[in-house]
């Protein structure tokens, strides 16, 4: 089998436009899913550290549910199964009138899946602080809420920045699964180009390089944030 090369494919229309559209969707899905993942994930992670047993059990149930099912299957459940299980008027609205259902499904599916992982990292970050800090806060008369808000969460946030960086990168990479429900993000578009032009190597290279650049930008940016919020006097960041 021989392969015909043509790199100009990448810079000519409509293929360049396809790639850019794909990149746009990748960023939109990853961005929105990450916001959802942080909001839900930090909450669930905190729940798992509270003295209240019901809160802890709920948190554990959430994490176990979303971590033991493949993301692809979760997306399919949100996209195909949920509209059927909801009461008829809501289900029908989702199926007919909701604009961009693939986008919202991808955001919710990816967001809630990632939230389980963020929850675990948040929990580990809080538990790494050690009971002494919580005791000192309690001893001075702070309520549980105050001790979380002023002491535990600010310290945990710094502990958790490196794992959260990797988690954000995972979100960017996992956004590629949206193509399975019809949302053509970057990977999906490169496949489209491959099918249309048979210049798969060029198309995939373009997409791959874009991912590498995205990853590098994120890592550099988040390392700068780490340095900015580092606690003075503790081990300097390499």
């Amino acid at each position: 089998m021989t392969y015909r090369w043509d790199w100009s494919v990448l810079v000519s229309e409509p293929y360049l436009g396809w790639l850019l559209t794909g990149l746009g969707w990748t960023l939109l899905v990853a961005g929105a899913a990450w916001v959802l993942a942080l909001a839900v994930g930090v909450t669930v992670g905190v729940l798992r550290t509270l003295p209240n047993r019901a809160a802890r059990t709920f948190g554990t149930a959430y994490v176990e549910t979303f971590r033991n099912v493949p993301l692809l299957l979760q997306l399919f459940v949100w996209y195909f199964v949920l509209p059927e299980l909801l009461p008829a008027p809501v289900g029908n609205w989702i199926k007919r009138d909701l604009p961009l259902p693939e986008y919202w499904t991808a955001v919710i599916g990816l967001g809630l899946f990632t939230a389980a992982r963020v929850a675990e990292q948040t929990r580990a970050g809080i538990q790494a602080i050690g009971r002494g800090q919580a005791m000192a806060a309690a001893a001075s008369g702070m309520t549980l809420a105050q001790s979380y808000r002023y002491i535990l969460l600010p310290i945990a946030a710094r502990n958790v920045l490196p794992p959260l960086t990797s988690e954000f990168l995972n979100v960017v990479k996992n956004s590629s699964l949206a193509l399975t429900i019809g949302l053509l993000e970057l990977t999906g578009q490169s496949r489209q180009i491959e099918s249309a032009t048979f210049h798969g190597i060029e198309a995939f290279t373009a997409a791959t390089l874009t991912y590498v650049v995205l990853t590098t930008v994120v890592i550099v940016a988040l390392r700068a944030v780490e340095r900015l919020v580092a606690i003075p006097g503790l081990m300097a960041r390499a």
Partner: protein
Amino acid sequence: MSDVDPDLIKAVAPFLWNGLLTSFGLLLLAMAGGGLLGTVLAVMRIAGPRPVAGLAAGYVNGLRSVPLIMVIFWFYLLVPLVIGRPIGAFTSALVAFVIFEAAYYAEIIRAGIQSVPKQQLAAALASGLGPLQAYRFVILPQAVRKMLPILLSQSIALFQDTSLVYVVGLHDFMTAVSVTANREGHLVGFYLFAVAVYFALCFVASQSIQLLNRQSVSP
């Protein structure tokens, strides 16, 4: 969803079972291949001369920057080209998984090696073992034992990742369920069934790892 036909179940069961076997096949082969390649990469990075270490680092960082689906597409395209003739989806998918997972296993094993006290290597070399022997008989066994829980967790993640062969139409469990669901029109039932199966398998596996962890820590 309520009208579950037992004959239907009987008819599709073998197809789904084969899908599950395919998933397990991919898992085990990718664990073996990826684990081996990952170990080589980790040792290259830690003990190799500069260019070798750089190459390994480039490989690992590069593969960790790219989605798995992208890698699957790459090898689906490349393997037949390189070999010179069309090849089954299973083989190209397997190559993709081995190459991809090796990067993740490499990082875990590298962390494990770094946690072994440096004097262990010195002691092994001082006793006359060559560097490769030192790694094989002294360092790596300790590194792997330490990281076993994390390696196993990564393998559970790998098992879930096998579902992505859906994008090249390979009939693993996930794809088999999807094909069946669409053919029979019982999307809800079949997908929820798939959720139950994956959840049961992964939950039991992760709980077993936790048990293993606790047992090895207590004495």
